[in-house]
């Protein structure tokens, strides 16, 4: 009697059920009713979400302005590369941007580069995270090849990425008054706090025969060189935008913003484009219709399928 009960209890234990492969399990059977219900449900969920997302994306006002060709003076357009490489020619240039819709602060300023391979293997690898954090205390900069040292002194920050720092600058003027551009806090907080050293100062940077991109102020520690930090977060795709700063005033419809820019950076040799982007933001981020379109598409196809199945089910009911 007792042993019977014990045996019964033993049978109940989870391990016994496991050994007999009879652990409780849910086994949904896809009956037509269930399938239709699931598709309906998906449609009902996805279409509103998609619409909301699309709306958020549409609320974002974005102005894109390509300036790399316009900023080369007419006579030099035949040979843009020699123009950009000639230091004696002043590179300043003015552009007009017309605001077609009211833009609420903060307005983000991005520069966009196209056909620029920040993800190239040689390029991505050419940096030394340890040196960025510890400066000259860290000696092994072999990963920074081919820009690791100059005149037998290490370069801080070393590597191709830092060496090719983007150096176009922008000034914004509305109705004669300069718009204030906030250039602080454009890099990730974690980068500023943990990746780039507070006591590391640029040294021996852009001192060689080959000058790449922008120069750095040797008085400012790396953790405050936010342009560098933004630039060094390499992009995954050959067409990318990087944050330049924020305008903290609203822009009204039909405002004309004059951009005074220094067109220093060479994208002409490889046919890359340079664009300036002003954009507001919504709760969902910048202007991006894809997510909304995808959701609406999935929702619509689910609904259609649900309807087709429903008709089929009604017609061929068993």
């Amino acid at each position, binding site marked *: 009697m007792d042993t019977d009960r014990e045996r019964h209890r033993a049978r109940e234990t989870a391990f016994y059920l496991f050994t007999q492969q009879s652990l409780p399990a849910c086994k949904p059977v896809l009956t037509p009713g269930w399938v239709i219900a699931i598709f309906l449900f998906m449609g009902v969920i996805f279409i509103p979400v998609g619409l909301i997302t699309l709306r958020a994306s549409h609320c974002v006002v974005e102005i894109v302005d390509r300036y790399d060709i316009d900023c080369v003076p007419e006579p030099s357009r035949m040979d843009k590369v020699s123009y950009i490489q000639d230091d004696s020619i002043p590179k300043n240039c003015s552009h007009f941007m017309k605001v077609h819709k009211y833009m609420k602060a903060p307005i983000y300023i991005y520069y966009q580069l196209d056909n620029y391979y920040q993800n*190239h293997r040689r390029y991505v690898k050419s940096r030394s995270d340890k040196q960025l954090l510890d400066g000259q205390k860290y000696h092994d900069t072999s990963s920074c090849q081919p820009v690791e040292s100059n005149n037998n002194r290490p370069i801080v920050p070393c590597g191709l990425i830092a060496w090719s720092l983007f150096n176009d600058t922008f000034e914004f003027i509305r109705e004669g008054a300069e718009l204030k551009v906030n250039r602080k806090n454009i890099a990730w907080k974690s980068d500023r706090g943990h990746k780039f050293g507070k006591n590391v100062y640029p040294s021996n940077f852009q001192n060689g025969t080959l000058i790449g991109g922008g120069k750095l102020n040797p008085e400012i520690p790396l953790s405050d060189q936010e342009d560098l930090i933004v630039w060094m977060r390499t992009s995954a795709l050959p067409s990318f935008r990087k944050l330049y700063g924020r305008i903290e005033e609203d822009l009204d419809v039909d405002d004309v913003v004059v951009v005074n820019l220094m067109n220093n950076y060479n994208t002409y040799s490889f046919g890359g484009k340079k664009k300036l982007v002003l954009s507001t933001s919504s709760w969902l981020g910048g202007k991006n219709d894809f997510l909304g379109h995808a959701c609406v598409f999935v929702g619509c196809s689910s609904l259609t399928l649900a309807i087709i199945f429903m008709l089929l089910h009604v017609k061929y009911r068993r």
Partner: protein
Amino acid sequence: MKRYVYINDNESSHELYCDNRISNRKYTVLNFLPKNLWEQFSRFMNQYFLLIACLQLWSLITPVNPASTWGPLIFIFAVSASKEAWDDYNRYLSDKKANEKLVWVVRQGIRKHIQAQDIHVGNIVWLRENDEVPCDLVLIGTSDPQGLCYVETAALDGETDLKTRVIPSACMGIDFELLHKIKGVIECPNPDKDITRFDANLRLFPPFIDNDVCPLTIKNTILQSCYLRNTEWACGVAVYTGNETKLGMSRGIPEPKLTAMDAMIDKLTGAIFVFQIVVVMVLGIAGNVWKDTEARKQWYVQYPIEGPWYELLVIPLRFELLCSIMIPISIKVSLDLVKSLYAKFIDWDAEMIDYETGIPSHATNTAISEDLGQVEYIMTDKTGTLTENRMIFRRCCISGVFYGNESGDALKDTKLLNAVAGSSPDVVQFLTVMAICNTVVPIKSKTGAISYKAQSQDEDALVNAAAQLHMVYANKNANILEIRFNGSVIKYEVLEILEFTSDRKRMSVVVKDCQNGKIVLLSKGADEAILPFAYVGQQTRTFIEAVEQYAQLGLRTLCLACRELREDEYQEWSLLFKEASSTLVDREWRIAEVCQRLEHDFEVLGVTAIEDRLQDGVPETIETLRKAGINFWMLTGDKQNTAIQIALSCNFISPEPKGQLLLIDGKTEDEVCRSLERVLLTMRITSSEPKDVAFVVDGWALEIALKHYRKAFTELAILSRTAICCRVTPSQKAQLVELLKSCDYRTLAIGDGGNDVRMIQQADIGVGISGREGLQAARAADYSIGKFRFLKRLILVHGRYSYNRTAFLSQYSFYKSLVICFIQIFFSFISGVSGTSLFNSVSLMAYNVFYTSIPVLVSVLDKDLSEGTVMQHPQILFYCQAGRFTVSPPFLAFFLLLYNRASESEYICWMVWSIFVPCNCCVCDHHTCLCLREK
């Protein structure tokens, strides 16, 4: 080749033969690492991974941290190596225990206690009751005055009944003290693994002069790992020691069986490897072209104008590394893991425990469970597999009178009981043959009850039946048998025993009646081995009818016969027999030839019929499995009629109107050929009809068919869903399995006895029934079950689930590797074909191990259908069997797979692209964490 063993010669043989140190170890401490690595690297997959891992050490080309490949690789190797090491260590421990056991051995004429490993060939070893035998010995003395001793050979062949062993006649009567000083030579063959044969000779030296060379057989030996029972002491000469014993020689690691799924995975791996090479070459060329055209313009990349000589190779090698994840490194580990779990599930299954004996099912081979789900042919033994192998004497026919026909039990037939009571001479003679024409040993317990130790179930049944009919085989004292019949004691002296062999199909004893000194030959055997040899003039018609009638009922028949011998005839023959018995070459054949000279002109006494009941659930099991599309072949040593009857009674074949039996017979090549063609023709015609057509073939015709008409027979084998092969030998069983395997069918062989071992080892899957014929088959098999009916569950539940799970798991492994690999490939097109990895090392490793490999292991608990559904609709198994057809052209499947996966990765990549290009800020930490926007 022979070996000469000098008894008690302490010096001469030490160098010639190895000592008794047993070693089952595969490795030593020193060679473990190199040998194990060598074994592991003989697999293509491992070589490949090693190559990849080595390439990754070259920092110029490695896309990710080498640790991401070395880590898993070392882990996998460490797991298999430590498993091997653990097994080997356990083997070492058990060897050590056996080697250091103390045994009594004679040294310089004095018995000493030494370690078992120090025994040398020629030493005399003393054993006490219940001692384990340390090496192969030739008996020279026992405590029994008749020179008998009993051994239990369970460890050797799994048979639990006691075997009698006897000392050679030359050593008979040598006293205890002299045994220490005995000298002589044993001439024996070189070590082999046949545990049923030992053809040797013994000659003793003075003072133990015996002119004759004394023949030795397996009966005079006790083999390693047996136990001495019911005998106070025994001593023997060590002839084979250490790893050269019969047990040691038969040990060995059988070839690992490869499942259809494994072969498929290997093929797929090969195909993916080829594909990978193509991708690498295309991308490598594209990368070099891009580098030379575009990258030189990208000033920020600073490509040097002049590169090293191997520059052209750098980009292809980078892509090789990038694509190396296409072949999943985890698949071997995950599959090994889940396969051992499938095996455990079989061991644990409470519904496959044989409650009569308490034996659970066991999966010895843990690697082939999914093959169970793909079985197409089952080759089954009859006796002990379909039937219970519990023999009961049911009927008999004595001198033309049938007994037991009315009641179905001859032991209760009053006619027979009256005849016994009236001592009818025919009946008495018949019962005498039943009682003493055998090798049974009667054992008297303290209460006086007699029990019998028999090696054959039939003999056991006959002796017990005779005892119930008052012909009690009471005692065996050396060569003197004692029989009690109706109160009187009759004594016989056994002169010779002509043992049963499957070729002769009969056994005989020559006995001398101690009362009147008459010498009689008593025989029993299969009808075709006895009836044709009846003396001229005897009417055997009734016996033939009796045999047929009994076979119709599915009973096993034996014919009993006797012949009186003249004294001189016996003496003359005895010399020939002795000579034949002491030959070393072809002894079995020579003995058979000599026996033939005595076994003729029989007076046939009658026919016995023994029933062997079907096991529970056999018809249902066969029906269910047949519905699942599995074809059954019955391969039996029994005679045609019995086999057909058993086949009918267990649904194996259908009775006349629905089924049709086609016979292939004939004694000559022509006859067999004609009959084979006729059957083939009928088979082709009826293959479209819904009729159960089966063919029956006997061993003789089969031999001819396999030898000369292999093609026609193969075609027949493919056409026929059912076949009965009777009178087949163990090697023919194996040949038939081989034939079906060569037609690319998945075969399962199931059997219970030693004669099924070869077939079980030959088949893709061998299943042994741990039954009454010992554990020999169960040991050789991949799976052992207690009863035939568990086969249904083994195939339909365990086999099917295992197949589905493994299929899912392996497909998934390839799928996830291809997905991530294609993302990398597509990314390379937007990263300047430079071989940048989109994922960093940690993420890549985490993807392979934590995100995809470990969670999916839960699928071993996955059940697509409940067990009940599968059992009710066994047709579902078709999908599993068909598995090999749908994936057989691996390339087609592969490219289908590829197409799906490619479009998927494309989609993922495209989605990434669409989201991130226009988004506010496209930043990523070494390309992994892509964030939408920074604040």
